[in-house]
């Protein structure tokens, strides 16, 4: 658009730099809206592609042009007739897919259902296919199993959908209810989507509960689990638990044998906004109640705290678990990722490279060709 400076609207627009490209003098109202609306922003969810890509729908025109001759028109009429008859027989509603990869389902109690079908107690070969949902009522329980994955037991009043199962990823969605997972697949293979976080198995067994309001709780009994949402990660080792709430994502994990005051303070810290008095009080309680074992929670607090709080947490953490070589106070206060990783590894709760590997595989990296291309572009664009 040509800007005419004599037009008052254009003149105003020329002063709209902050709205246009976030430069110039910040507009307080726009800043307020940006802050208010930030939670509606796209979460960093990876794209899940099917193993087989369906064929592209052919264009009508591309089909029509080769047919523009009389013999072909006659053939087309025949095809149309056949298509009409086929359509007649196939237009009834179809049940959920019952083909392709599936997991074994066993009835442990009552009458769990896949779609409208109840699974009989002695049914030998019940299967849950990708896209199907298994539902248990108040009196029923079921189990899912897959030879190279492990077993997932589903408690009453639960709803679980099988989202993906292939060589590299097994994924289910827990809408509501409780599952107990015992997984022997390699770390990072088994993923559970919940309404408020994604749980990534890192070699373990655990219990995951999702309430009807979408909030959840994860208790790890062996190994460790990663909980992830909106770039916020929580690691839950054996003996620890972590709560999660819609949009907030995973909270700060803590060991279940921590003092009640410590646990209460962690919950308070998670639920209170920055700069609130309650949050300051909760942080003070966390730091005073923390044992060396609770360094798990303090490590997570480092990245959830603001700059002032972080300095306090860092001091207490260092008093409980001396930082290893290569970790400096300044680096931690600046949230240096490699230093945070080093300090985490010194806790002996799990090797964080497992998680970093999962992040890299979950978020696709450029192919060699693409990387080369992008590097060339970047070098060309430099002055």
């Amino acid at each position, binding site marked *: 658009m040509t800007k005419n400076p004599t037009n008052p609207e254009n003149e105003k627009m020329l002063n709209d730099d902050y709205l246009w490209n976030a430069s110039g003098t910040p507009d307080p109202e726009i800043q307020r*809206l940006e802050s208010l609306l930030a939670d509606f922003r796209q979460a960093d969810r990876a794209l899940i592609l099917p193993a087989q890509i369906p064929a592209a729908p052919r264009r009508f025109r591309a089909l029509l042009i080769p047919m523009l001759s009389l013999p072909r028109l006659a053939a087309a009429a025949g095809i149309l007739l056949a298509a009409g008859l086929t359509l007649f027989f196939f237009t009834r509603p179809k049940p959920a897919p019952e083909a392709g990869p599936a997991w074994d389902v066993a009835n442990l109690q009552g009458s769990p259902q896949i779609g409208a079908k109840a699974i009989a107690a002695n049914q030998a070969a019940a299967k849950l296919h990708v896209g199907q949902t298994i539902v248990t009522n108040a009196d029923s329980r079921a189990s899912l199993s897959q030879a190279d994955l492990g077993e997932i037991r589903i408690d009453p009043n639960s709803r679980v959908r099988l989202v993906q199962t292939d060589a590299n990823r097994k994924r289910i969605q827990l809408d509501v209810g409780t599952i107990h997972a015992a997984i022997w697949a390699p770390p990072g293979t088994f993923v559970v989507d919940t309404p408020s976080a994604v749980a990534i198995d890192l070699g373990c067994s655990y219990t995951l509960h999702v309430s009807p309001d979408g909030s959840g709780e994860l208790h790890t009994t062996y190994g460790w689990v990663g909980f992830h949402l909106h770039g916020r990660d929580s690691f839950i080792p054996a003996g620890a638990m972590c709560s999660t709430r819609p949009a907030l994502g995973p909270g700060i994990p803590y060991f279940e044998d921590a003092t009640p005051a410590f646990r209460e303070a962690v919950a308070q810290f998670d639920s209170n906004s920055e700069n609130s008095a309650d949050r300051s009080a909760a942080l003070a309680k966390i730091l005073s109640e923390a044992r060396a074992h609770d360094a798990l929670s303090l490590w997570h607090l480092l990245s959830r705290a603001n700059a002032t709080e972080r300095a306090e947490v860092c001091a207490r953490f260092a008093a409980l678990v001396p930082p290893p070589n290569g970790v400096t106070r300044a680096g931690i206060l600046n949230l240096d990722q490699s230093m945070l990783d080093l300090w985490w590894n010194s806790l002996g709760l799990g090797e964080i490279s497992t998680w970093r590997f999962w992040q890299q595989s979950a978020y696709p990296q450029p192919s060699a060709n693409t990387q080369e291309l992008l590097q060339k572009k970047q070098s060309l664009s430099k002055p």
Partner: protein
Amino acid sequence: MAALSELGAPRSGPPAVNAVHETGGPDDALVRAAQHGDRIAFGLLYARYSRMVHGILLARVPFSDVDDLVQDVFLQALPRLTTLREISRFPGWLASIARNRATDFHRRTKPTDEFDEQSDSAQSSTSAPSANHSSHSSAEAHAALDAIRSLPDTYREPLILRLVEGMTGPEIAARTGLTHGSVRVNLHRGMQQLREILGRKASPPTGGAQ
């Protein structure tokens, strides 16, 4: 995810990097590579364009359905990519798929589940963000989103991309295939209308009190 990470190598070989480099920008090169079956290139396109798709959908459908629909849009786009003849039109083409998917969403949704601005706001505790917000600021966020959604199509899409997705005007233009001029005008006028709506809400008329 895994399916992406396992597929770095194109099936039938994309154009050579140098040739691609000389004939088009990085997005063009990625689109061309994706057309040749390079899923990593498609994953990169997803990384670059998913915010735009998210914003377009958020302008039209309930927040709780947007993430799933973003996936749908890219899954619809992937097999159709080979039918895209003018690679430079990829942004507009993808935006159209997103808008059509939103329309289709409303067509397929049962009447009782129809998107309703009021009920969408009311169900904020389960389907919308409350992170780091008190219930008051969450309600304010919903009110602001609803106000943007009440604007004409032309204004609400760029405003959501700017205020929610955090894209700048030039980014919006590049991602949607619109000109800088149209995006700037739409942002400016949309913001003016939004200020009026929010101003009215902040100071409701006091008629009757004499």
